[in-house]
């Protein structure tokens, strides 16, 4: 276990050390970051199959553009956690602020608490599992991937979304433009079961408790008759 005291050694030294693992064969596969104190860009740009635990809460963009690594935040995460993640796993024991998983292209983001507004905004292939609720404008312009919410969703869920799949167990305050409820077919139950298991939520919820939301695809080609929807 490599223990890194962020307040003592600084952000640059941390990320430099983590980036040095890229493409290397190393036995330094388990890292612990202590005293994060809400710092920004903690473990941003990691590209190695290592496990990193952050002991405390983080600022903006923790685990940004993560590849391969499994990063656990033993606390809450500030805005843009795991933004543009490519692969790997990010787990937040607490809550997540705005833009969690924004533009993520792959991997798995698990939020054990609640997520604020714009969770999964413009997501491009990432899977996101939120054990609690999500805020307004989540999955805005979401392109692909899966967003699973065990709690409730705020206003304008999935506004202007493309092909992302949204699964919500609780209530949805309002659906965004061009977002509609869709039928749950066998393949969706199967996918959801796997997502719940991967998202450490299989004991908390069952696939049949969820509803699926997706794109009505009416805004895919501009039509003047839909102008009021924009």
């Amino acid at each position: 276990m490599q223990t890194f005291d962020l307040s003592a050694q600084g952000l640059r030294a941390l990320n430099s050390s983590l980036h040095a693992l890229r493409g290397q064969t190393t036995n330094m596969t388990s890292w612990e970051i202590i005293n994060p104190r809400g710092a920004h860009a903690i473990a941003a740009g990691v590209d190695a199959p290592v496990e990193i635990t952050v002991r405390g809460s983080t600022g903006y963009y923790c685990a940004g553009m993560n590849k391969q690594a499994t990063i656990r935040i033993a606390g809450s995460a500030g805005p843009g956690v795991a933004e543009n993640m490519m692969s790997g796993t990010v787990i937040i024991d607490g809550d997540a602020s705005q833009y969690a998983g924004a533009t993520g292209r792959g991997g798995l983001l698990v939020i054990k608490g609640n997520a604020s507004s714009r969770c999964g905004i413009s997501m491009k292939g990432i899977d996101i599992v939120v054990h609690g609720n999500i805020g307004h404008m989540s999955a805005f312009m979401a392109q692909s991937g899966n967003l699973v919410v065990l709690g409730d969703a705020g206003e304008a869920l999935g506004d202007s979304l493309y092909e992302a799949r949204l699964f919500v167990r609780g209530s949805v305050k309002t659906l965004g433009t061009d977002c509609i409820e869709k039928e749950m077919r066998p393949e969706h139950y199967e996918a959801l079961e796997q997502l719940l298991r991967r998202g450490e939520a299989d004991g908390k919820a069952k696939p049949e408790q969820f509803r699926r939301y997706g794109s009505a695809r009416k805004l895919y080609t501009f039509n003047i008759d839909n102008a009021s929807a924009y």
Partner: protein
Amino acid sequence: MSDFPRTPPRYSATFTPAVNAEIRRAAATGIYDIRGGGTKRHLPHFDDLLFLGASISRYPLEGYREKCTTDVWLGTRHAKKPIHLDIPVTIAGMSFGALSGPAKEALGRGASAAGTSTTTGDGGMTEEERGHSKTLVYQYLPSRYGMNPDDLRRADAIEVVVGQGAKPGGGGMLLGQKISDRVANMRNLPKGIDQRSACRHPDWTGPDDLEIKILELREITDWEKPIYVKVGGARPYYDTALAVKAGADVVVLDGMQGGTAATQDVFIEHVGMPILACIPLAVKALQDLGMHRKVQLIVSGGIRSGADVAKAMALGADAVAIGTAALIALGDNDPRWEEEYKKLGTTADAYDDWHEGKDPAGITTQDPELYKRFDPVLGGRRLKNYLKVMTLEAQTIARACGKNSLHNLEPEDLCSLTIEAAAMAGVPLAGTSWIPGRGGNF
């Protein structure tokens, strides 16, 4: 019938035939006009400025004997690896999607041969461009299409795009005709849809957030890459100041003459400011912060010749970027395709329906039958030639002003032909010491 003379038909200056035609088109279709390119209206521009060549008070440099340097460093504020270019004319961001793969390759070939950089666009980084661009600037856009840390690391600089001159406050647009399999795959979108890019970044709002975003990008790339911030010319003083405050190494300022692949005509023609009005305000912001020449300023929007380059630099820019002019150098809007332009209901030098993907020159298209007409080797050579000519022209003017570097050009080398341009550029009206709004004698 009376034999008295009749009043001849008189067109309205308000309801011109062009205005009326647009009203009829709107009434028939119910949709605004979408097109590519930049503003087509007349604006105060570099043509309204003249250089004051040396005479007794200043002496010139010998045109073919004495050196006049053209190279420029970009990103010296924070980046471990700032960029060094041989010439201060860069290629502006244009997306793969808007342009064909061979066109992106040609831009890389031409720019590299001339010793300058190219810039990606709203579609990710292509192998054509990375492979042929010695120096490549990777745009970080609201859409984040194709964004990934590997491309960030293999870029030579990163340009955070906040806005562009053709549409400050607007997002990108790529209509279904151009969303081919490859474009759709790179952007992770369904094929053939009308793609609308967001106008704001998804994970930050405001200058304080931008500072943190820049920190993240620097951390991901280990502080090696220069970070540019690109803004559309709308409030250049404050936007430049805020970009500097957020930590930018380079500010890219794009006036309303700057082109776009596609957006609403009403946006292109009625939003933003001409680049002439933008440059002095951005320079003042840099000077007020003590950052002029420390944070470099690249300006774009209607740069066409070495004279424009020299004038922009005399006003305080460190470098310029060209987009539309580069496409014309490659062969866009060339009269050789006139018969095909006519079939599209337009004519050479006026063709701007780039979003339809039917470009006869094979540059702004994803149609293989069209883009195979375009030879990227020849296109690259033409671009190199054009860049070389621009540089020689700018040097010619600088030497005439007694300057041994393009960067030594200064506002005192200029005068204005019009009151409007004098006020915007902050240089005296020709034959006077009067700068409207700043005093002096008429």
